[in-house]
């Protein structure tokens, strides 16, 4: 019995049990991670998981059931149970459910991969982390930590409309962090970001990060931060490095344009959105430099795929164009409810999870400047980079972020390091204050986006480059 056979059996059983639409995903995921600390491997974990999840639509109500067994009997039972759960959902019914049309295709897709990350010898991967963490420890870090993670996912999708799609997506990445511990606080520096950079690529991404070459510098900077002056409090011009801007996009744009949040489907947990569909196409989200795209077609970016988990093909769309809000992240049912004609942004975190609206690659198109030009044009400000903490309200408006490091900017030059830099603001006001944007774009990957109940962890990409924001409140402390 093939994976397609199991998925087909589950879909047919759901239809036989009364569903008017059903789809099923078989997923086989292999995961490997290694952590190292102070020159020793700390933990090596390998996981292999395979199973089937089936979704059934009975009337206007959904049901979902998942099992780790691909036998015909188990698949059919899962389909029947999904339909039965959907029937129970109808005890508290909602409005009619429609699905925007998607062409039923038979297709295969694979992400690009030059060096199979699971094929790289463990000893080589261990040597990389052990060496980098040893170097950090030798250069003053109290805690020298390194990490890589690898996901190799094969999935087979079948729908009652005739979809039959298989995909293989390989993702990996890694990074290093140095922590120095003072009397009352800790200071951390990371490369290229805390817990690393990730993409839908092979091990060549990790090799390109050149972790060993940056180990000594970040260790020394973490130690120096313990005695650096604190980030001053007040309003100033803020320059954000690309990694921090990627998270700013993720939190204050990506989640805000999720259609399920806008429709209230996440109201009790992840929250809603400050955006009102009545303003789609007219609302000024940010300055004219702000061009945000939803683009799952970017080769190597972490949020890339061939088809989403509803069988919609990957398509690039605008979310914000010249500062105006013009697009959302949607699924087939949420789009129909909002009278939109596109989905394409639905994914499930494994076979046991319901597919839901998730970010793909949501990022800024490049701007006309460079970081050096931005610094040179800034008379008085702070440059912050690499995220250390992030918090935003349930409407995705009020945010406060902390970074690992700040630098004073005076008369167009980068000055001394600042510790505990934080900044806070309101999303649209902040984005409207962006007046310089670099073209030095990197597709940053975020492998830990939490959403949903039961919880799901999403992998998202965020092309971003350094940018300047005017009159931002910085230096918030306890």
């Amino acid at each position, binding site marked *: 019995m093939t994976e397609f056979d199991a998925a087909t059996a589950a879909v047919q059983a759901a239809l036989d049990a009364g569903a008017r639409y059903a789809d099923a995903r078989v997923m086989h995921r292999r995961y490997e991670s290694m952590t190292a600390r102070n020159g020793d491997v700390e933990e090596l974990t390998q996981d*292999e998981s395979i199973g089937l999840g089936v979704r059934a639509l009975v009337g206007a109500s959904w049901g*979902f*059931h998942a099992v780790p067994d691909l036998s015909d009997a188990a698949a059919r039972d899962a389909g029947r149970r999904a339909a039965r759960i959907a029937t129970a959902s109808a005890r508290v019914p909602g409005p009619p459910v429609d699905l925007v049309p998607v062409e039923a295709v038979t297709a295969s897709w694979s992400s690009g991969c030059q060096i199979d990350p699971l094929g790289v010898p463990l000893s080589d991967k261990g040597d990389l982390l052990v060496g980098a963490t040893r170097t950090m420890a030798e250069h003053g870090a109290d805690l020298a930590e390194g990490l890589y993670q690898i996901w190799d996912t094969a999935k087979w999708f079948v729908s009652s409309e005739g979809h039959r799609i298989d995909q293989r997506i390989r993702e990996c990445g890694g990074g290093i962090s140095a922590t120095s511990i003072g009397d009352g606080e800790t200071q951390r520096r990371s490369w290229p970001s805390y817990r690393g950079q990730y993409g839908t690529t092979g091990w060549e991404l990790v090799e390109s990060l050149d972790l060993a070459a940056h180990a000594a510098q970040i260790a020394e900077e973490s130690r120096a931060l313990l005695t650096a002056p604190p980030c001053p409090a007040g309003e100033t011009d803020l320059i954000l490095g690309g990694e921090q801007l990627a998270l700013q996009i993720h939190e204050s744009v990506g989640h805000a344009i999720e259609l399920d949040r806008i429709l209230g489907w996440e109201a009790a947990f992840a929250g809603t959105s400050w955006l009102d569909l009545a303003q789609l196409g007219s609302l000024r989200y940010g300055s004219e430099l702000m061009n945000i795209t939803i683009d799952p077609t970017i080769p190597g970016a972490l949020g890339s795929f061939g088809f989403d988990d509803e069988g919609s093909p990957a398509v690039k769309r605008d979310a914000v164009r010249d500062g105006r809000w013009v697009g959302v992240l949607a699924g087939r049912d949420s789009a129909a409810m909002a009278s939109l004609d596109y989905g394409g942004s639905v994914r499930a975190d494994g076979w046991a999870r319901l597919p839901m609206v998730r970010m793909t690659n949501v990022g800024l198109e490049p701007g006309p400047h460079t970081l050096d030009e931005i610094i040179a044009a800034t008379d008085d400000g702070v440059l912050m980079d690499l995220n250390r903490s992030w918090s935003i309200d349930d409407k995705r408006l009020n945010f406060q972020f902390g970074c690992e490091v700040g630098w004073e900017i005076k008369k167009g030059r980068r000055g001394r390091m600042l510790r505990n830099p934080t900044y806070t603001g309101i999303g649209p006001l902040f984005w409207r204050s962006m007046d310089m944007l670099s073209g030095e774009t990197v597709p940053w990957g975020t492998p830990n986006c939490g959403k949903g109940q039961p919880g799901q962890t999403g992998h998202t990409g965020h092309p971003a480059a350094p940018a300047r924001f005017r009159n931002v409140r910085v230096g918030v402390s306890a």
Partner: protein
Amino acid sequence: MSAPTELELAGQVVELVRRLGGPAAQAEAVVTRADLALTRFANSAIHQNVAESTVGIRLRVHVDGRTAAGSGSVVTADGLRALAERTLAAARLCPPDPGWPGLVPPTSAPLAPPVDEATAHAEPDQRADRVRAFVAAAGGLSTAGYCRTAHRSSAYANSAGHTAHGRSVEAAMDGIARQAGADGVARRCADRLSDIDGAELGGQAAAKARAAADPVELPPGRYEVVFEPAAVADLLQNLSWYGFNGKRYAERQSFAEPGAAQFDRAVTLVDDPLGASGLPFDAEGTGRRALTLVEAGTTRAVAHDRRTAAEVGAESTGHAVAGGATWGPMARNLRMSGAAAGPASATGRSTTGAAAGAVVDADTAALVAGVRRGLLVTDLWYTRVLDPKSLVVTGLTRNGVWLVEDGTVVRAVRDLRFTESYPRALGPGAVLGLGGRPVRQPDRVDGVWWAAPPVRLASWHFTGGASG
């Protein structure tokens, strides 16, 4: 032929490792079967309704002085053998592990509370009926939330001859009612689904939502606060993960100093995994027992697994978790004791007018009654740590904030951002009152819960208003 039990599967894997890796190979395996179901509603309708029947096996081996872990969902003979082979192969390629603490020797496991079979085998209709009751009790307000049930059956076996098994169940409901952008919340966690009353929770959430209408914006600054149990749960979680974590303690990243009076005398914190339905052993097979972390303001202990305990010359406290070598041991069933004699006064003034419904019980009412000017806070949201050692955290209020003047809730307030050191906020002299009865709050993951009474604190640093 019936499927092998979890204990049989765990034993098979351990035996496979010994056969493949030689008699000196050490191995431990945990097998868990789980039936998890969650019925989710929004806009007063069930929109997501899921269930999963899963099996997972986690194996850790130590061979030739090297350690590796593996896990999987395939429990066929071929699947088990593949898991054993790849984990052994991984271990042989790893560097030496001088900190390996050895396996738990054969010991008796503590007795776990009995499992409610009705909850273990709850049907989707039963969850939907509680949602329907919640929605109906909200009296026309828009509602959202979930009702979930979870049943786990788990077994542990190791090559030292130790075995353990147990089951756990949990039911939880968490929902909001909404009116003109103002939300009210009610949530509960219980060992029996029959103890979850959707109508009671829906009515409570609706009353709070109505009381939260027309909020005003207050300037940031330090305010005296009364935190309801949902808000206190966030304090407990962050204290546990960052402070009472034996790995962070060993790394000097924790504020915890056993023996020091770090908290107000009113604060007693006990991790009590078998105080509700829970598995009687941790990820290393160590028995789980109650552990007093703070006693009358004095820090008494931090949570350890075998590795962190060995590092500091202590014994495991039964707090090992999967991935613990990286994240450290966690206390996940933390209870803050209530005031021994109950609330200082049970005669808190009832609120009237627009704010009626903000106070949901006598414990909270008694604490509010003592506040000359401060805030009643229902819930905290999106809390993130700025510095782990001082445990400075930023986050926002959510699901209802009210201004209290002269012991009376006078009006709703818009959400505020805070930046505060949690240990400092609970420090000596900082706790002005506790409610008498801890209320158990569900976590995002079943089996994890936080129980706390409402708490009155002298000062909380709000660093921003809703508009920045």
